[in-house]
């Protein structure tokens, strides 16, 4: 059974360690910058975040659907897309790109 909404329940016991851009976290009162979430892919991760803080997926993902043009998601140091899988214990950064703002 997954421990967070949107979790995979597919045996990924080690949650991903997720760091959010401060500007993103600050849009949602109470959202921390660092948190642990269980998900099998970046897409699942954004849905899990949305379940915790409604609307957060919209800030990261557009309706294409794709990671927004000026947002970057890194999984274990590599630029990721929505379909990028999250290995157990993955290190995820969801960051604002230098090109935005």
């Amino acid at each position: 059974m997954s421990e967070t909404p949107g979790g995979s329940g597919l045996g990924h016991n080690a949650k991903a360690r997720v760091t959010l851009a401060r500007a993103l976290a600050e849009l949602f009162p109470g959202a921390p910058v660092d948190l642990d979430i269980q998900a099998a892919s970046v897409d699942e991760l954004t849905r899990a975040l949305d379940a915790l803080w409604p609307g957060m997926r919209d800030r990261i993902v557009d309706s294409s659907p794709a990671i927004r043009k000026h947002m970057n998601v890194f999984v274990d140091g590599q630029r990721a897309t929505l379909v990028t899988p999250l290995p157990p214990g993955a290190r995820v950064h969801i960051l604002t790109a230098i090109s935005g703002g």
Partner: protein
Amino acid sequence: MVQSVVVLVGTRKGAFLFESDGARRTWRRRGPFSPAWPFNHVVGDATSGTIWAGGGNEWFGPAVWQSADLGETWSHSSQGLAYAEGETPIKAVWSLAKAKDGKLYAGVEPAGLFVSEDGGNAWRHLAALRDHPTRAQWMPGGGGLILHSIVPHPENADAAWVGISAAGVYHTADGGRSFEPRNRGTRQDYAPEDQRYPEVGQCVHSIAMAAGRPERLYQQNHCGMYRSDDGGRNWISIEAGLPSSFGFPSAAHPHDADTLYLAPLNGDQAGRFMSDGEAAIWRTRDAGATWTPLRTGLPQQGAFFNVLRRAMATDTLPTAGVYFGTTSGSLYASADEGESWQEIASHLPTITSVETMTRDV
């Protein structure tokens, strides 16, 4: 009862509020609010005091923010504010308007219209506009393909006009289930000579409804100033006597259907700033037959600013206040219908929108 006038200002870097009493001599600033967000339109509901701010952030996409306590606290939502998968995603909200029945409308880029029946939390696409057979003829203006103007009918909640650059004016009589273009008589100077009065494709810049006469509309277009006395079915030019045919905002007097304020610039291919650097708002008191420049208190040299399409408004006091914001970050106010002006804020970020909210407090 003491009347409070709140001027709501949208900028490229957040929203500001300026508050005064009925005298409108001294102003108190609140904000900036959400300074990381470019807002294209900030509106207020005088009855509830709720403020909505629509915009789009390069990182985080489009959203409508709202505050019920004059900016003390804010929340945002874009729930449902999206096109179908595979379509070009929405970049920003460009216009907001509350209808008589309480519904809130939002116009977006790329051009489309959404409605919220819960005060801006959840949104629903009114697809009939983008499904209109003329959509293939829409083309983006300098600001993008944007739905920048929404004018609800003050008595009939099912009727509204919208303005799209560059598609023109569309009207709905059935709450957004269908739309028809209303551009007859408006010009398109950027087309070959024999194609300058098409059904759609005109670059409307703003629409203003005359006080107490919902069928009278004024329009500032990329190519001329116009008036319609039949709900936009036919437009006539009212640009004679103005320094150019080009400008962005239009603001109707709150009580006199014949009075309108415009901010004409020096021309669309001539810098798009105040003519000769001398700032003036132009007023008609006879529905566009004649025009008078209003300059007292405005800079008369070196004023090379623009006034953007949403950046001028009137208040509803008996002697109307008029307000406009500049691309150079100045906010001007007149408490005497434009006869004299006072700069009530300077050095703000680029001002995109000015609206007012008059309340008894």
